[in-house]
């Protein structure tokens, strides 16, 4: 009996003193949610604060349109200003140069559907602001910008010197930076010998280790209801990302205009509500899981229904979910084995 009581009290004690640190902050114009398991509260707080500082610096460096301080643009803002002026090479940091090389390769892989060079289109639609209100759709300007074909391959990178052969190139790393930040944070935590953590930047999540005995669990948001549609275990090193039409959008004459713009038409993609991709750990010296979780959802979102599979396969992604404008749910056969529906009786189609 005494042993029973002892083990019971230990069990209860461990329930109440679970070594889980949890913090929420606002960076990158979105919510950053950090969970660290198995460290003292004090150490976890220091680690989380360090990560948040890194994120804030990255945000300032990579922000497409907001000045860091009065009259001072961030590194990306300065580069965009230089692109507009002509072909004079600008010196950038090795870090930004590596990001641009990587983003250009990913853009080519996506057949140009992931295109961080269309910053002018994004601002024409009013999405380079803190809040999104309906804009007068300027069809002439959109047509001109599509015709000008700003592409990542217009950017010439020689060492740390960069210029653009196309003055309409304006970089917006909104579909890259959050995933990149996840990889930075995961590397930092590895370096600090932290084995168990979950980092969520505005819906892009990466897992390190486990939540105690169990894997980290994440919920996938329903695009039209304030609830999760499914949950899944996120194993060590895996990342998950969702692109949706419900976080950044405006309504105009009953139609939804979201921030994900098809570079081929210059218009927001309107045939998809959300795309979720689940990415396994990647080999070193390649694009890491965090970046892929951010990038790959965009081409699948934009691509026509028959080409969604091909868009995912181009990046070796086997696990994904698409919810289209009719709220029809498509799940890849691999992904189906990993998810648990929150409600029973969810109707869906399986993709091969």
């Amino acid at each position: 009996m005494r042993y029973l009581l002892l083990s019971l009290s230990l069990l209860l004690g461990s329930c109440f003193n679970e070594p889980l640190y949890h913090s929420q902050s606002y960076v990158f114009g979105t919510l950053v949610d950090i969970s660290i398991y198995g460290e003292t509260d004090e150490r976890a707080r220091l680690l989380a604060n360090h990560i948040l500082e890194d994120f804030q610096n990255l945000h300032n460096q990579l922000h497409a349109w907001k000045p860091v301080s009065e009259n001072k643009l961030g590194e990306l803002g300065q580069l965009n200003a230089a692109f507009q002026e002509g072909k004079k090479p600008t010196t950038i940091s090795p870090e930004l140069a590596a990001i641009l090389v990587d983003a250009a390769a990913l853009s080519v892989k996506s057949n140009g559907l992931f295109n961080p060079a269309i910053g002018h289109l994004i601002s024409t639609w009013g999405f380079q602001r803190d809040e999104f209100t309906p804009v007068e759709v300027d069809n002439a300007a959109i047509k001109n910008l599509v015709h000008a074909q700003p592409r990542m391959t217009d950017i010439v990178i020689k060492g740390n010197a960069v210029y653009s052969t196309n003055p309409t190139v304006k970089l917006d790393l909104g579909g890259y930076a959050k995933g990149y930040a996840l990889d930075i944070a995961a590397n930092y935590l590895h370096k600090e010998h932290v084995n168990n953590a979950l980092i969520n930047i505005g819906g892009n999540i990466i897992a390190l280790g486990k939540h105690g005995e169990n894997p980290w669990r994440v919920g996938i948001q329903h695009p039209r209801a304030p609830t999760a549609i499914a949950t899944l275990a996120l194993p060590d090193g895996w990342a998950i990302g969702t692109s949706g039409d419900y976080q950044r959008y405006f309504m105009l004459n009953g139609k939804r205009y979201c921030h994900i713009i098809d570079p081929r038409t210059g218009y927001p993609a309107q045939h998809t509500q959300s795309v979720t991709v689940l990415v396994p750990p990647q080999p070193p010296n390649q694009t890491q899981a965090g970046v892929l979780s951010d990038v790959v959802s965009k081409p699948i979102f934009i691509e026509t229904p028959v080409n969604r599979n091909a868009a995912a396969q181009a990046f070796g992604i086997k696990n994904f979910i698409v919810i289209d404008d009719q709220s029809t749910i498509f799940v890849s056969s691999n992904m189906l084995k990993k998810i648990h529906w929150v409600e029973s009786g969810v109707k869906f189609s399986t993709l091969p």
Partner: protein
Amino acid sequence: MLNFLRYPKLLIKELLIGDWLIILLSLVGIFYLFQTLWTNEHAAKVQIRIGDKIYATYSLNQQREIHVHGKIGDAVIRISQGKARFAKSPCNTQYCVHQGWLSHAGQAAICLPNQISLELLGDAKPYDSLNY
């Protein structure tokens, strides 16, 4: 009455249609209550965060309006009969208000411009973080 307990067969014979209906309705009632109340998912509390701080945690078992001051202005959070929602917000888009009522543990509504979040807490958290 004690006779019935001693001889259950007698009890069944003596029951009238009305008695059976009462038994049936009670069973349905119990089943319904079990279904709606006896689940981990049902939320008991709402946690309000402002910026990176936990502002407060309130029981959902009350009728109440909470006025909170966020980054850009004053928001109103309404609690009513096991549910919570953003009732008013100073943001332009009103995404947070459009989220509507939250009633299950793990559900969350976030107002990014005003940096206020609501999360419903229950006995068991269905997931560690939400992929939205």
